[in-house]
């Protein structure tokens, strides 16, 4: 009996380690790349330890603009979807079982419908409505922020509903009956008994809906029209090239998440200890100093101070010298490669014109982009095989958000030099559709 039990146990441990390695590996790698001075996010080769990517991130106006829009949208979505989700949960918990499953099916479908479908149906519906109403409605219903809030509320309310439903299942309905019996009106019973019971769920629902709104891409990329949220700005930045400031962003998110999670853990433990009566017995909780140290607020403050210290320390770090050295090495390497290439071109002049036309497979040495191949799909109609011949943007149908194509329009502006000038791909010499694609990684002119 004990032999299989222990072998099961060690399998569990082994599997868990593998699983969490898979889960945390990518995050770890991203974290490491955030501190590598190489202008493309990578672990190897390691160049210099630097914190400059954090300032690059903060100085990205487009992202910061998107952040403001996202926060605005997030507040709107929370303000609507939490009460709507609560109403849905209440309705579900109180109608008769036959209708309940039908209503549940209807309310849960927005979670299952692909985000792009929700986005499209939202802009189509409100666009039609706006056109037929005319006047002020037209302006509102073609407003990206309004449409995004509406589109997101459609499915994010269902998340809130699930949270409330879970909590409601643990509600003892005799409490409401007791309140009524003691003379409360139904409204009073709702406010004094049911709402306070749901309060923790309101908190978590608000938090989760905010997160979901902030994260959302699939619906938002359609409904936001010409505007940008943080996530859509991020996506277009990544699609058209990238630098480790994105890793820096990931580091910030992970740090904030961990601080939040640890504080929450401290809070639940303390609560459990107090509720379970263990607090009265445990030396840690009876000792006044121990009480302060284990208080979630103390732990939170401690972690914030720690993070602040890390930021300060990082901002003191100077990577310039190391980078100079790497730069010199690179330049030497590059000159050598150019020399070799010149020699080769002299030998085979007929190959020369083809080389720059294939940015997808450059010689690994000259183009340090690790994503060479990934650029193929961003160019409308170029190498993408599908919709046979998509019409050029904004010709037949002057859509209300023609401007949204600004970030995909081919060749809008020639790429200016990147901050750490990597050996330029042959984009300058050959104004290919990819030229404009690099626009986003360059600092704003």
């Amino acid at each position, binding site marked *: 009996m004990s032999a299989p039990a222990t072998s099961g146990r060690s399998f569990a441990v082994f599997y868990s380690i593998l699983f969490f390695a898979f889960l945390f590996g990518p995050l770890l790698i991203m974290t490491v790349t955030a501190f590598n001075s190489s202008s493309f996010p990578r672990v190897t080769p390691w160049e210099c330890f630097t914190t400059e990517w954090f300032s690059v991130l903060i100085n990205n106006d487009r992202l910061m603009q998107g952040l403001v829009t996202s926060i605005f949208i997030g507040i709107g979505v929370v303000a609507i979807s939490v009460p709507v989700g609560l109403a849905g949960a209440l309705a579900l918990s109180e109608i008769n079982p036959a209708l309940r499953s039908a209503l549940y099916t209807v309310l849960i479908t927005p979670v299952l419908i692909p985000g792009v479908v929700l986005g499209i149906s939202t802009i189509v519906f409100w666009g039609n409505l706006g056109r037929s109403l005319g006047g002020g409605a037209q302006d509102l219903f073609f407003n990206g922020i309004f449409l995004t809030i509406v589109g997101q509320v459609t499915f994010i309310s269902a998340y809130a509903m699930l949270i409330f439903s879970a909590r409601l299942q643990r509600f*003892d309905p*005799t*409490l409401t*009956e*007791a*309140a*009524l*019996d*003691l*003379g*409360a*009106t139904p409204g*009073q019973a709702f406010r*004094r*008994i049911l709402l*306070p*019971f749901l309060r923790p769920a309101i908190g978590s629902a608000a938090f989760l809906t905010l997160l979901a709104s902030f994260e959302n891409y699939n619906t938002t990329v359609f409904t936001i029209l010409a505007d940008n949220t943080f996530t859509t700005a991020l996506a277009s930045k990544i699609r058209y090239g990238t630098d480790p400031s994105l890793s820096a962003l990931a580091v910030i998110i992970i740090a904030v998440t961990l601080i939040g999670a640890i504080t929450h853990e401290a809070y639940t433990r303390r609560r459990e200890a107090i*509720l379970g009566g263990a607090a009265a017995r445990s030396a840690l909780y009876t000792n006044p100093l121990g009480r302060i140290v284990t208080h979630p607020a103390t732990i939170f403050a401690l972690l914030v101070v720690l993070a602040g210290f890390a930021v300060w320390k990082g901002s003191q770090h100077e990577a310039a010298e190391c980078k100079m050295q790497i730069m010199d090495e690179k330049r030497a390497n590059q000159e050598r490669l150019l020399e070799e290439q010149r020699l080769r071109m002299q030998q085979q002049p007929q190959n020369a014109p083809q080389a720059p036309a294939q940015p997808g497979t450059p010689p690994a040495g000259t183009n340090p982009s690790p994503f060479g191949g990934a650029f193929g799909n961003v160019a409308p109609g170029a190498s993408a095989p599908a919709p046979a011949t998509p019409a050029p943007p904004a010709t037949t149908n002057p859509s209300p958000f023609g401007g949204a194509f600004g970030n995909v329009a081919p060749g809008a502006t020639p790429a200016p030099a990147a901050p750490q000038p990597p050996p330029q791909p042959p984009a300058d010499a050959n104004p290919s559709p990819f030229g404009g694609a690099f626009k986003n990684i360059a600092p704003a002119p």
Partner: protein
Amino acid sequence: MSTRDVTLDHVSIRFGQHTAVNNALLNIAGGEFFSFLGPSGCGKTTLLRCISGFIEPTEGRVLIGGKDMKRVGPNKRPTALIFQNLALFPLMSVADNIAFPLEVRGVGRKERRKRADELLDLIALPGVGDKKVYELSGGQRQRVAIARALAVEPDILLLDEPLSALDLKLRQHMRTELRAIQQRVGLTFIYITHDQGEALTMSDRVAVMNAGVIEQIDDPLTIYEKPRTPFVASFVGETNSIPGKVVSQSGFDVSLDTALGRLVGRSAGGRQFASGQDVVLFVRPEQLMLDPGGKIAATVVKEEFEGSQRHLFLEAGNAALRVSRVGGGAELMAPGLAVKLNFDPGRSSVMPAAGA
């Protein structure tokens, strides 16, 4: 007629096909301690919820203080219900719980607190007002629930098995406590239980329910001594049931033929029986006495000792009999011993056999 009277006028309550309460007809006087006693699922809670206004009767009327309560919501009735699980509000302090009825009536904070403290004194729990509900013991919660119900200043207090969650000692203590509180405040208490001990010790009158039907309403002594139906006889207390056929009847005395020979018992409720009718004779174990001159011959199967009492299990003419005697004293009887039994016909009851 006082405002504290409750009348159930032919009340029936149905859930779909299922009849939870069938044609209940009774009148509870103001200031009475009235109990409903019955097995689990017999419809006690349903009846109580109907009196407090959570369920409308399918048929019949509920009258409180002579007024028809049709379409009067639970928050408008002069009743206060103490729930089976107490339903104290877990997120409020003890004082806030007790003062909740005053709060919803718009009484000011100071006044509420004063009243809560008075009620805490009444239930002998002074000074716990600022505690949370989960910091109280089971018996204390019990009393807080009563205090909260009293804060409504109801005319009628309804209690749904309030002691079932407590341990035996505390339950016995709370019985006296409840009865004392009731006498202090003088309200009508309607009490529900499946525990006959509770019903018999506290109540002025008891209604015994079975499968939605009220089978008998009487004071505790009568319920025990003079059960009117086979169900009441066997549900309340232990009993020996001896089936037989009526031979003759004179007044209350019925003589019948049984497997133990010809016996005489008292007709329950003064019924008249036809001779030859199938009946059952009920005799309590403590009414059966060992008597060398007795008519019933039996053999000892075993005797069990249980402190203040001892139980003798006997076999007589294929039937099992049971005799209870005072605990201490003589040696336990050996199995196989032949004995003779007797009983006072006045302390037995003869009823029609079930299904007859």
